[in-house]
């Protein structure tokens, strides 16, 4: 799959997932699973694990609130119906599955390009230069924060303020790590903005670098687009029939 094909595939599936009811989500789930297994192979498990790690805590929280505490779904509250825990459970399952699917699809697509650098993926996108530049700068900021976490963690562990392992001290001093990360990140960004980038006009280098190597979509992309469109049509069909 190419990056451009992946973007379109993700957009179709996410829009469909946002509108789908439970049967629609099941169909999208099947498409996403097939995509993950066929396109990312052994990385499919990683995508599944990451999506579960992100969504499970939220699902557990919603379960406790809607099923345990409130005991009815938002629709029932809105309509003034007595409601039941079963419908609340159905509501939580639908929302959680929708979130899970969106995260899973995004993760699976990102893992398709695990062998490529983010910069080369952005470079091969067919998108306006401004959008590509924004993506590179966003990733640069994320990377800066990631390194700031590493550096600050090292500094605080070396000084004994926090420990490498789980500890009560970390619980009390965790906020120092956050302060330290921000200070490090801000210093790094200011260093670049003040010295390196203006001296070199570094950002202007992005223009020729990003303008090249756009990769057109391939036949494999189109197959996945057709599959995603079929799933989306199923969702829209149910939506129209349900409304009628």
């Amino acid at each position, binding site marked *: 799959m190419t990056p451009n094909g992946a973007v379109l595939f993700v957009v179709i599936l996410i829009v469909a997932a946002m509108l789908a009811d439970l049967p629609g989500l099941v169909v999208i789930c099947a498409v996403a699973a097939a995509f993950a297994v066929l396109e990312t192979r052994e990385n499919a498990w990683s995508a599944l694990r990451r999506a579960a790690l992100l969504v499970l805590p939220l699902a557990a929280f919603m379960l406790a609130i809607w099923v345990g505490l409130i005991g009815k779904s938002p629709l029932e509250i809105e309509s003034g119906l007595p409601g039941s825990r079963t419908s609340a459970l159905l509501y939580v399952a639908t929302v959680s599955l929708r979130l899970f699917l969106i995260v899973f699809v995004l993760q699976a697509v990102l893992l398709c390009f695990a062998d490529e*650098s983010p910069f080369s993926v952005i470079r091969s996108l067919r998108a306006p230069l401004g959008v590509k530049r924004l993506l590179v700068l966003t990733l640069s900021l994320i990377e800066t924060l990631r390194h700031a976490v590493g550096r600050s963690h090292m500094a605080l562990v070396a000084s004994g303020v926090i420990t490498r392992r789980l500890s009560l001290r970390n619980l009390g001093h965790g906020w120092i790590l956050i302060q330290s990360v921000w200070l490090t990140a801000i210093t790094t960004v200011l260093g670049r903005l003040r010295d*390196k980038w203006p001296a070199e006009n570094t950002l202007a280098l992005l223009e020729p670098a990003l303008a090249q190597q756009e990769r057109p979509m391939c036949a494999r992309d189109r197959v996945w687009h057709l599959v995603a469109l079929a799933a989306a049509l199923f969702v829209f069909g149910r939506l129209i029939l349900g409304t009628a």
Partner: protein
Amino acid sequence: MAQRNVLAGANFSGRSAALRALLQSDALVGKAFLIGPYAEAALSGLTNTVRDEVALYGMQTPNGGNCFAAENFAEMQLRDPQSLSGGEQVMLALHCFSQSAYRTIAVDTAFEQLDPTNRAAALDHLRTCDADIFLIDNRAAPEGFTATPAQPQAREFSIDWAALAALSAPQKAAGISITNLNFNYPGTARIFVNAGIDLEPRHAYRVSGANGAGKTTLFKILVGALAPDTAEMTLGGQTYRPWRDGNRALALATQNPDQQWCGATLREDMTRRRRIATRHGNAERISDERLQSYTRALGNVSLDAHLYELPLAARKRLSWSWPFAGVHPWILLDEPTVGQDRATRESLARHLTLMCEQGYGVLFVTHDDEFAASLPHRVLLVANRAITLR
């Protein structure tokens, strides 16, 4: 005819300010390649791999076709530039410059991070390339460069070494022994394989080796910031695992001082360290009163000054206040002389000698042979995934 300039002067003589003003002048703004003292001013910060960093700069016509150190990066194409060692980052920056269309390059003390071989190669490259060069370097002025003195600034941050020596309290360092040390970063070649060292107190050890050999990694393991795959470590004959139980014996001053702070001001930084030091019984060594004396001696800086607003060379000096305070008996200094003028380097060597006599143990990483020669020491060579006492 290309210009080859060295901006000469001691610390705080206005060299970096002069260089910045030059790079912001109408003639040069946006046209000069800059290799600053640390990563944030050496690499673009826009890419995640060495290959992309080179591609970013190499999209234009190569600079004279004289590619610098291409072989060094052939096997590092997928490495994250920020994960390279300080010296490797400088080499990469120069490699990128050699691939770019820039006709001017400014280097602010960055070459001081290079080992002698790489430093000679870097200077040779600059001598042969057809570009204007503006260099700040505290080591011997390279041949073929014209020295331009900078205008002194108002503030000097000079160190009162006599006061610092008077503040230094005796210690009783215990011997450190490591055997069976194995370590590798995920996805990279092994750094240490069955390595071992024995460190005796009252001695200084120079941790030597090429850029990227693992010197800083060794320091990070010793202070417990990195956990080795395997290692048996003892302190005074007792099992000591700082990566598991916390560091209580080694005070580290990092290569980049900004990677060391635990707060925005020195007072905040030291107050936090003091709370931890209380557990080991040495907290009085960084009492407010003593800290005031230390900061007076290390450049007359207020304890409440915002660290990141001070000049880099001043921050570097303040970063020594933690190891010099004597809370821990072992002192680890990673490239302490980078960005420091000759007078400071000579005095630092004398002070470290004094601390060894007072019972401390000292480990330092430096590529500055002149500094190392002025301090009695033993050499720990980090090479071929082993550590050898020379």
